């Protein structure tokens, strides 16, 4: 048994020239690999940086608006209105009847002449009503309010526009100032780029995401648990596994067609609603959750299951007391990835009609709504140059949303991660 | 149950055991030789040969110490089980017993110078036969150990009876002679001791045989009455030399 074959092998020359060459080749291979890795990272980071810089460069101006001062002599034009009228429950009603639009228009005319109307944004008067609600005392005195200018002036001031507009800019140069465009964050879609906001789309995205999560998460997780822990290993299970894997690769627009055919035409659900959007996106996200869920469950070591079975835990207890808690970080990560993908989907939602002009944010899942990516798409189609910066600004908001979601994913995963 | 002859997976264990067997065979051979030489010295009153036997007993003692050491080491390092363990325990005890056999041979040799005139004593003629049988017992018991032969061991056990019978005869004859020839009492006493030594050698051979039986079968050897029976009244011996 122990007869070793005596080979006529010379002792190995580890210091010889051959070996040195091998060492040199090996080191240079390692270096090359490292270099390739680093350049891949640098390239990807470069693309990302490029995107961010371009977006931020274009979009940050969407958060600012050009303003001009306007003097309004409230006591004169409202014939003695008092602050108390605009406090309490009757404030809105009183605002409606005071004819603020005409007040502002006439004040503009007084100060800037007939032409003055073109200087200011058509929705500028709404800013005044917001100011009154904030600070009712203002109606008892002469006040100088800063109102947003019209779109052409805004563009001309920021980056250059038509010759006429630029001339106006030169004319009023010392009165123009830049302020933060809070409206962008609280308004919904509008025809005037100075008045658009992302809140409507944002809320629509939020509601759609919630619907998607409510549907895709439980179904996906339970399916993953069943397939991994209970399902017998036969042809049928293989078929299901293959189908789910393929489903995850199906182009999203197909899901849009599915939603159109099934939810809208067959079931007759309300078009443009977050419900249908959420359902469609849930169909799309569920395979991703199942796949990542299965992987997470597979990675739970069998020793944990054996330990639990050995102590007399039933299969259900093994799954829910031991496997699921350990697989949860992986499942959550997969879920957030799926949700982030769903957040950025445009094509399927366009197909089911979430592309309407939504001027008010949705208040329920059946109200017509739109989502951020669709809003971005619609704005990018607009002719008015003022929408360019707004589109980029909306993209920045979307990226921030995604960033927050990912941060949430990492936080949740770290919190639930138990070491074993 | 005989060893299947299969080797241990750890070859060093086998070589340890073989070394021990060799040493046991050697100490056995030396002791047998010592008996033979001592008896020859006695027959021929060869004082030089007797002195040689006494000297060479030291070798036997050293060999026994080495066997003990190696056995001890093997038990500690190899964690022997079953028949290996039995063999090693047997080796331990057998080497001690054989060393004592050597001591008896030395004792016989020491008495050679003191028994110069015993040719006249008739019982002395029985001693060579007795020693031959005792010697054979020693040889056979060690053969049985080498071959793990439980049957041979039992036979050795039985044949010791012959040595015992020899002793009984010699005892009676020498006592008679001592009564009839009181001036020979000194030498006759030595003769008795020599006979006694041979009888003890026979007994020790049966000790070896018992160990061999245990090593081979794992069971203790069935009992046999042994030993001389010195309390048997010697009928025809008158008291105090009176008629």
């Amino acid at each position, binding site marked *: 048994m122990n007869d070793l074959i005596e080979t006529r092998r010379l002792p190995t020359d580890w210091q010889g020239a051959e070996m040195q060459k091998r060492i040199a080749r090996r080191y240079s291979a390692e270096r090359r690999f490292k270099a390739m890795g680093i350049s891949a990272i640098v390239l990807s980071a470069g693309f990302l940086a490029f995107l961010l810089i371009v977006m931020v460069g274009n979009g940050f101006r969407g958060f600012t608006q050009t303003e001009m001062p306007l003097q309004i002599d409230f006591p004169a034009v409202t014939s003695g209105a008092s602050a108390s009228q605009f406090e309490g429950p009757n404030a809105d009603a009183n605002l409606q009847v005071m004819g603020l639009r005409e007040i502002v228009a006439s004040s503009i005319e007084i100060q800037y002449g007939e032409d003055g109307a073109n200087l200011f944004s058509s929705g500028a008067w709404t800013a005044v009503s917001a100011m009154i609600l904030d600070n009712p005392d203002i109606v008892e005195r002469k006040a100088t309010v800063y109102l947003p200018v019209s779109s052409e002036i805004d563009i001309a001031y920021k980056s250059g526009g038509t010759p006429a507009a630029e001339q106006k800019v030169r004319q009023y140069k010392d009165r123009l100032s830049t302020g933060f465009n809070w409206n962008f964050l609280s308004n919904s879609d509008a025809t005037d780029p100075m008045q658009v906001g992302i809140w409507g789309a944002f809320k629509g995205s939020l509601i759609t995401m919630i619907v998607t999560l409510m549907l895709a998460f439980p179904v996906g997780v339970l399916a993953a648990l069943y397939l991994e822990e209970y399902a017998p290993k036969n042809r049928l299970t293989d078929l299901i596994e293959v189908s789910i894997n393929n489903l995850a690769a199906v182009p999203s627009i197909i899901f849009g067609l599915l939603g159109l055919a099934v939810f809208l035409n067959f079931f007759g659900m309300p078009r443009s609603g977050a419900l249908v959007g959420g359902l469609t996106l849930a169909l799309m996200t569920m395979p991703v959750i199942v796949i990542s869920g299965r992987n997470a469950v597979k990675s739970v070591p069998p020793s944990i299951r*054996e330990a639990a079975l*050995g*102590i007399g835990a039933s299969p259900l207890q093994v799954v829910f007391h031991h496997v699921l808690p350990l697989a949860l970080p992986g499942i959550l990560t997969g879920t957030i990835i799926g949700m982030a993908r769903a957040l950025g989907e445009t094509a399927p939602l366009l197909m089911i009609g979430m592309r309407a002009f939504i001027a008010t944010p949705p208040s329920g899942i059946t109200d017509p709504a739109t989502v951020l990516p669709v809003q971005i798409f619609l704005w990018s189609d607009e002719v008015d140059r003022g929408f360019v910066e707004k589109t980029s600004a909306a993209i920045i908001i979307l990226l921030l949303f995604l960033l927050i979601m990912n941060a949430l994913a990492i936080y949740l995963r770290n919190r639930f991660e138990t*070491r074993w | 149950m005989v060893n*299947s002859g*299969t080797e241990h997976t750890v070859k060093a264990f086998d070589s340890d055991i073989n070394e021990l067997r060799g040493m046991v065979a050697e100490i056995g051979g030396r002791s047998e030789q010592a008996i033979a030489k001592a008896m020859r010295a006695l027959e021929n009153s060869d004082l030089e040969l007797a002195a040689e036997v006494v000297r060479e007993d030291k070798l036997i003692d050293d060999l026994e110490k080495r066997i003990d050491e190696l056995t001890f080491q093997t038990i500690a390092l190899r964690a022997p089980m079953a*028949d290996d363990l039995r063999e090693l325990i047997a080796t331990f005890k057998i080497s001690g017993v054989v060393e004592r056999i050597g001591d008896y041979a030395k004792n016989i040799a020491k008495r050679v110078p003191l028994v110069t005139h015993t040719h006249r004593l008739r019982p002395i003629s029985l001693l060579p036969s007795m020693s031959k049988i005792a010697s054979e017992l020693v040889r056979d018991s060690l053969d049985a150990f080498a071959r793990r032969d439980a049957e041979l061991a039992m036979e050795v056990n039985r044949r010791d009876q012959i040595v015992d019978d020899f002793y009984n005869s010699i005892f009676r004859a020498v006592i008679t002679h001592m009564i009839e020839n009181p001036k020979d009492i000194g030498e006759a006493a030595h003769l008795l001791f020599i006979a006694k030594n041979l009888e003890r050698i026979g007994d020790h051979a049966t000790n070896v045989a018992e160990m061999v039986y245990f090593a081979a079968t794992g069971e203790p050897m069935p009992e046999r009455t042994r030993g001389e029976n010195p309390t048997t009244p010697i009928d025809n011996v008158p008291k105090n030399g009176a008629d």
Partner: protein
Amino acid sequence: MTDSATTGMTTDSGTPKMTARHVDVFYGDKQAINDVSIDVNMDSVTAFIGPSGCGKSTFLRCMNRMNDTIPIARVTGEIKLEGEDIYASKMDVVQLRARVGMVFQKPNPFPKSIYDNIAYGPRIHGLATGKEELDEIVESSLQRAGLWGEVKDRLQDSGTALSGGQQQRLCIARAIAVDPEVILMDEPCSALDPIATAKIEELIHELRGKYAIVIVTHNMQQAARVSQKTAFFHLGTLVEYGETTDIFTNPREEKTRDYITGRYG
């Protein structure tokens, strides 16, 4: 092949806790256990020894039906716990596994606190009616396992933060907590250093008599130290079963002798 070695069946100490008769185990077409019959008593520790792949672990896992988790495994024959056939359809596997506990080769505490590790079993089987009773069970189990002194001040620490030997004792305490009748140990000390091993062996000695213990080990010296009865398995057959002293000083079968003296052909 040879007939099953049913020697040692008539026990000298009352009725056996678990009995197996003519058990065969198949993995698909391959037969892993061949006509094994054996008794396990309350007052002795029984050791299963044998070379790798001889089926000792497979047979052990039959005794608490852990082989059920392997789809291609098929068990025939009769295994009884206190006279009840454990493979009968009316035997609840979950309760069986509480009555016949198992300790595995690699310590596998749950990734929970030490307290929860022990308390989990009693909780799911409803063995405690309140926090106080549960605390008592946890304390007594840890004491029986010889771990109480070392962990009583840090019951909320994670079970996986203990050393290997402590983890294994934790697993033993966990098995004890559900009040088993039999404890099966599958090479419990293979992954441990000699000191931890000695502590576990001492623990086994203390547990003897309270639980029927079966230990699978590939370390013959451990089997000799720890058990009163030893069963030698070879290629799925039970070759010899008897008192540990006899097996190790004067085994009857040649295969047994060859194995324990280190003579593999």
